[in-house]
């Protein structure tokens, strides 16, 4: 393995990320000092056990051939002890072995939307540090993790047979967030059915969204998925949807940062928190 000689200074990025995770005010200061850059955020979400991590692992390796790539994988914090068990590296052997890919695990730290409180600043720092493709894998706790929509330029919703991932029974919210639908574990029985049902439902709802079948263990379908992601991103650039997404992401980042700073420094002021929460929950609603 080539070691410790990546193009981007990972040690520096890593240390700054720790600051970002613990001190939002300082995070903003550091980020503002760095020049803005273009980067894409690719969100990966879906039920636990659907194979999100191994799929992200494959995709990250593929995009690392062309673009500098980072992965952020989020796992839940224990509501009782505040501790967390972050095991995504286990399933990301390829990405973690690639000297150029930066992989970071994060705990949700009380955040309920499937992300972590500092995710916006984390992504912004990675982008300004030179990472052009940033994959964000959500907690995947099964609840509706719709926050990823505000963060990512494109959201991949991973489904797999045998998990009760029947799109008909899925909360409407989760179907709304996907830009690409992936039926993973294509070798398992029930995969054909899930694939055709997903397609039928999307058709019924009048959406022309791609459904891709993959086997993230063996690697089948990953290339097709990777190409589709590229095509959609390009399309977003051309249609101007991307700049709209970015405008929103910035908005969310600012709001979220304000919220975090208040939480960190003025936690006792409950009314302020309520207001910010209200703003966070309601902003961008009109666009749906």
């Amino acid at each position, binding site marked *: 393995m080539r070691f410790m000689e990546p193009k981007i200074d990972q040690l520096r990025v890593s240390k700054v990320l720790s600051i970002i995770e613990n001190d939002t005010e300082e995070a903003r200061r550091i980020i503002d000092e760095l020049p803005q850059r273009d980067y894409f955020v690719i969100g990966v979400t879906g039920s636990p056990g659907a194979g999100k991590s191994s799929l992200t692992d494959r995709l990250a390796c593929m995009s690392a051939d062309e673009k500098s790539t980072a992965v952020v994988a989020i796992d839940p914090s224990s509501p009782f*002890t505040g501790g967390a068990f972050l*095991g995504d*590296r286990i399933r990301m052997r390829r990405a*973690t072995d690639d000297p150029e890919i930066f992989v970071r695990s994060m705990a949700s730290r009380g955040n309920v939307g499937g992300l972590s409180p500092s995710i916006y600043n984390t992504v912004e720092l990675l982008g300004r540090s030179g990472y052009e493709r940033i994959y964000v894998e959500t907690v995947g706790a099964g609840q509706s993790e719709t926050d990823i929509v505000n963060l990512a330029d494109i959201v991949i919703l991973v489904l797999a047979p045998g998990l009760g991932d029947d799109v008909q029974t899925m909360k409407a919210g989760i179907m709304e967030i996907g830009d690409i639908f992936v039926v993973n574990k294509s070798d398992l029985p029930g995969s054909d059915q899930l694939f055709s049902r997903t397609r039928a439902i999307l058709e019924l709802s009048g959406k022309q969204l791609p459904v891709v079948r993959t086997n993230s263990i063996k690697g089948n379908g990953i290339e097709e998925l990777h190409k589709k992601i590229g095509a959609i991103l390009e399309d977003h650039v051309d249609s101007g949807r991307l700049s709209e997404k970015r405008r929103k992401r910035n908005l969310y980042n600012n709001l979220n940062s304000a919220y975090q700073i208040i939480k960190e420094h003025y936690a006792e002021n409950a009314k302020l928190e309520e207001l910010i929460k209200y703003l966070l929950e309601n902003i961008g609603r009109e666009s749906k």
Partner: protein
Amino acid sequence: MKIKVLVAKPGLDGHDRGAKVVAMALRDAGMEVIYTGLRQSPESIVKAALQEDVDVVGLSILSGAHMKICSKVLQLMKDSGIGNKPIFVGGIIPAEDAEELRRAGIFEVFGPGTSLKSIAEKIEETVKK
């Protein structure tokens, strides 16, 4: 600030009961534990420590390969520029070897029968310093 700990199993030995039970205990002590699973090379352990910016690295080794593995991890930590991250080692380590490991720069060696509480306390104490 949350304490971040990397728990890794280097080498080929597949007995991960100790590593996992310790990981659970540290999580329950409020720490964020990054667990990398079996068969980690010294390179991937140091890379994980670097990318995750952990406060402490814990290695679990039961196959007897501890001398070689630890010296390599220590060397790579130095080369990578991470600096002096405390490294803890758990497993079947003869007293003589444990002594040598400490001399070489391993922070602490936990043998069989070490209580989970004392491991968590030791880590907290070390990080706070």
